[in-house]
């Protein structure tokens, strides 16, 4: 298919662009296969380049011959284009609609994007499972790498290489895979060096109504327990939901078959409930007219912060079981690709200082989200303005990022990165020139040959010039476990994401700059004092030598 077929009018002059907090810009609008470009053709005015894939929904209006297109983006921005001429306007609108909803992944921009920067390190090879395993292997010999899923035959949503208990062979793993939802047998998610305890994750056990059991499954997870110690299974669903799942062949671990495990049910919402929550929240944030009571009641009704609290609480609970109780943990919900990953990754943010560094956080995203098979393609297909309401669309990853932001706010010095990294990840998960977030799992990515045909996000981010934007000037390595407060009074609306386009952040940005200046100045002065001290000391020794020859 040629993009040209979809572009009926490639260029319109005298288009006026309206954006919040910017003066209107008049210029020429161009449509390309992947971008909507507006250029005023003046040197000092910024051009607008908008990826079609970032467009969530459009509205059109006509007043006489003047057409107006309102473009609502997946990053929640809303812009308005005034286009002279009804036909041009209609053409542009239908082209945008077609181009922003292309079905085929291989037509997406990452397959066409040619980087203008020098690749220092290929991001596709930055985070290999073997390397991750090496970090553990010095501390433990109880775990091994398994290549059982090499051809994605055992579990289509798992990566080719997983970490499993040494005592369990590949044959047993194949059997366990038939007992777990989607073939997602329990694998290692996190190894806590402090006490050798682990977090594992999996899909739900397929017990069904007749209480099926699987000896290999029991053996696998028991292999992680120390003699006489109990472990915890955290089911992210409430008990009744887990019980209902049995009717569809799913279920939960029966006490009788897992006597050494204590099961805890939490209730983290999934799917469209989260999507609706996002839609309501963004709606409330965009409405500037309502009064105080209405704002508070809409904020409450969106339930967004309730979801945040629930996810954070469950992650804290997992971290607590591991670190305080010294117990191993298995976490799963239904598929083990959504709430499960939220909990396992947040628990690591709390427990593991490395995951609070830039590299470590990227590794965490790579390991616990991309390789672990979070279906990004489905979940991030649409955002807050969508009308389609597909069941598989859900801001699961955004909720995770929001939770990280909440912890970052409470421990502003313990993270090597700042809020910008989280915002950047949110943007790229929904629309990007990089291939990293394409596809739903490693198997799909492999088939799409993303490594050969697209650029990795990490290749771009991990260059010094980019990294400096994401560095937290307050960072000071904190090797401790960080326990956030999950009280409603301590949780806040993530303004950097949700109010980003609704208010000017000029004064806040200036204050941030001033803070950076103070920190930089401090470093400068300390360096200077050190040099002067040394100089003085040298002079004093010289004097001493002169004095007593």
């Amino acid at each position, binding site marked *: 298919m040629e993009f040209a077929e979809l572009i009926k009018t490639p260029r319109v002059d005298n288009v006026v662009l309206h954006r919040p907090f910017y003066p209107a810009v008049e210029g020429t609008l161009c449509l390309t296969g992947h971008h909507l470009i507006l250029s005023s053709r003046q040197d000092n005015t910024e051009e607008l380049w908008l990826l079609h894939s970032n467009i969530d929904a459009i509205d059109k209006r006509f007043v006489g011959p003047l057409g107006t297109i309102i473009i609502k983006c997946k990053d929640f921005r809303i812009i308005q284009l005034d286009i002279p001429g009804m036909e041009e306007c209609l053409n542009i609108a239908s082209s945008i609609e077609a181009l922003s909803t292309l079905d085929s992944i291989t037509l997406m921009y990452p397959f066409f994007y040619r980087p203008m920067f020098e690749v220092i390190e290929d991001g596709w090879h930055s985070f290999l499972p073997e390397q991750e395993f090496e970090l553990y292997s010095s501390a433990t010999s109880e775990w091994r790498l398994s290549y059982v899923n090499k051809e994605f035959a055992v579990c289509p949503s798992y990566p080719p290489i997983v970490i499993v208990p040494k005592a369990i062979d590949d044959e047993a793993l194949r059997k366990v895979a038939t007992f777990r939802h989607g073939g997602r047998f329990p694998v290692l998610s996190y190894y806590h060096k402090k006490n050798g305890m682990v977090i594992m994750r999996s899909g739900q056990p397929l017990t069904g109504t007749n209480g099926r059991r699987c000896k290999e499954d029991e053996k696998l997870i028991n292999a992680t327990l120390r003699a006489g110690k109990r472990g915890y299974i955290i089911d992210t669903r409430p008990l009744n939901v887990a019980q209902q799942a049995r009717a569809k062949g799913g279920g939960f671990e029966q006490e009788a078959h897992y006597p050494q495990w204590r099961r805890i049910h939490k209730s983290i919402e999934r799917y469209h409930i989260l999507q609706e929550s996002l839609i309501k929240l963004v709606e409330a944030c965009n409405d500037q007219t309502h009064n105080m009571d209405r704002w508070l009641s809409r904020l409450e009704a969106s339930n967004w912060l309730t979801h945040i609290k629930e996810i954070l609480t469950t992650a804290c609970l997992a971290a607590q079981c591991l670190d305080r109780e010294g117990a191993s943990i298995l976490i799963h919900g239904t598929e083990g690709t959504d709430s499960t990953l939220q909990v396992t990754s947040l628990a690591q943010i709390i427990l593991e200082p490395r995951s609070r560094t830039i590299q470590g956080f990227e590794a965490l995203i790579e390991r616990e989200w991309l390789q672990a098979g979070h279906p990004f393609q489905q979940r991030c297909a649409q955002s807050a303005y969508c009308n389609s309401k597909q069941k598989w669309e859900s801001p699961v990853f955004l909720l995770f990022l929001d939770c990280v932001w909440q912890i970052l706010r409470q421990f502003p010095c313990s993270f090597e990165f700042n809020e910008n990294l989280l915002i950047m990840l949110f943007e790229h998960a929904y629309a990007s020139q990089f291939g990293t977030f394409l596809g739903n799992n490693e198997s799909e990515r492999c088939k799409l040959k993303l490594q050969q045909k697209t650029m990795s996000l990490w290749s771009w981010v991990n260059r010094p010039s980019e990294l400096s934007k994401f560095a937290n000037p307050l960072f000071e390595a904190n090797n401790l476990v960080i326990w956030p*407060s999950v009280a409603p009074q301590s949780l806040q609306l993530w303004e950097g994401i949700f109010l980003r386009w609704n*208010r000017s952040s000029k004064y806040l940005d200036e204050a941030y700059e001033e803070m950076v200046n103070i920190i930089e100045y401090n470093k400068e002065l300390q360096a200077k004092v050190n040099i*002067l001290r040394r100089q003085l000391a040298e002079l004093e020794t010289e004097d001493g030598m002169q004095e007593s020859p």
Partner: protein
Amino acid sequence: MEHIRTTKVEQVKLLDRFSTSNKSLTGTLYLTATHLLFIDSHQKETWILHHHIALVEKLALTTSGCPLVIQCKNFRIVHFIVPRERDCHDIYNSLLQLSKQAKYEDLYAFSYNPKQNDSERLRGWQLVDLTEEYKRMGLPNSNWQLSDANRDYKICETYPRELYVPRIASKPIIVGSSKFRSKGRFPVLSYYHQNKEAAICRCSQPLSGFSARCLEDEHLLQAISKANPANRYMYVMDTRPRHRMQSWWATQKDIGRIILNAMANRAAGKGYENEDNYSNIRFQFVGIENIHVMRSSLQKLLEVSGSRGLSVSDFYSGLEGAGWLRHIKAVTDAAIFLAKVLIEKDWISFGHKYSDRCGHLDGDPKEVSPVFTQFLECVWHLTEQFPQAFEFNEAFLLQIHEHIHSCQFGNFIGNCQKEREELKLKEKTYSLWPFLLHDQKKYFNPLYSSTSQKLAVLEPNTVSFNFKFWRNMYHQFDRTLHPRQSVFNIIMNMNEQNKQLQKDVKDLESQIKQHKNKQTDGVLTKELLNSVRPESPALKTSLCLKEQTLLPVKDALRTVEGSSPADNRYSEYADEFSKAEPAVVSSEYGVARMTC
């Protein structure tokens, strides 16, 4: 002292307010003439000033002892368990007596002795001089003059002696107007904007009933209008919600409490000569509820935020139900209407704050408190939106709030200047301001930028989402709810450290220079060198603070021995929360209640 029967009780437990596991600290409770003191087994002290106590409750006896719950005006809530009921009863009775002093002379301020001599004390009181403040505004001038009408508090008991009124307003007019106004509070100048020749005046409601009018009052308002020749219209802002005012509105003659001569030069309208009562005056209503509504709103807010195991949706529907943020928004909206031109950075800066406080605080402290808290909260919201525009920081606001109730200093005692003079506060008590000034390092905003002059007039955004729950005020003492590392403290310390480092650089450079000179001279005096070594300034410990739980500021940073900032920054603070973990996590506040 006659109220105190038991001065010391051992084995008392202090419960954690938000703990779900009934965690507690055990220690000893001491009762002094002015404070209730709890020292726990880690020797950590919790001081509660009797004047801060809003409510003492004795709950039903439990197996572990007798619970005593104390709610404070600074939003601290403590829950003690006293092993023996008798002790509990004694303390309860003593606190009931001590927390409600009948006579002014029993207030802490009259016994508080910070070891200042008389001249220091006098200087403290002179720190804020209203005359000076008016001078700063450029008064008196050709339109406004100092009136001696109230010199002996004859016209209005609750106004100060010195009042600024329009030059053309004669004494009979003032007297006449004051009779028409509730409690005699006739319109007087509150703030004058020199450049724009615009004034904010204030007064109380008119006693006009349905049809009555008062010619003198009308004259006075006309005079005010004329005293602002640059402006054609005068705005009368009634801070009451319209529904309370309907009957008044019907008469079209409302005069509110705040009168603003705004600059808005709209199209020409009727002139001054028009006899239509209050022509050239525009009415503006802003829905600020009265203090009783405010008090119950705050009460509701505290009930919501104080409940255990609070869910997010309960919290937000509670915030909505309490209506507190709605009131805050209303007050700010009103201020913004006023401030279209008037709110100036300067006006809200350090020095002026003080005088504002001195001049304006009146009314029974109990009645005033929510209003004042509200004022502070509005200022806080402004500081959140304009982090560089204010010279002071949040701790300053919290500290002032602390002392409106503490009665430790004379400033907030008494209802009006007259009463304060009668109480001889200046001779018998001390002023708060020198103490705040002494500690001013703690209250400086490290991000404050004097170059933000371009911000001369703040234009706050009052869309609802800008108003947030002020956790640091209402949960000041609930440490588990706060961020575990404070960016603010780090930056503040770093700023201080930078000053010291600058000094170090200078000293070192001069030493090196000296050395080089001496080397050429061939003379060497070691002692001299040593004496130039920079020494860290020893900060005196704060006199006005028993403890400052929130935003703790460490003493001055020691001289930096070329070390990394890690040595003297917040690592200690982080450790406190993270190393000692138990206090924070283990199932605090619903983090982890295990249910199967």
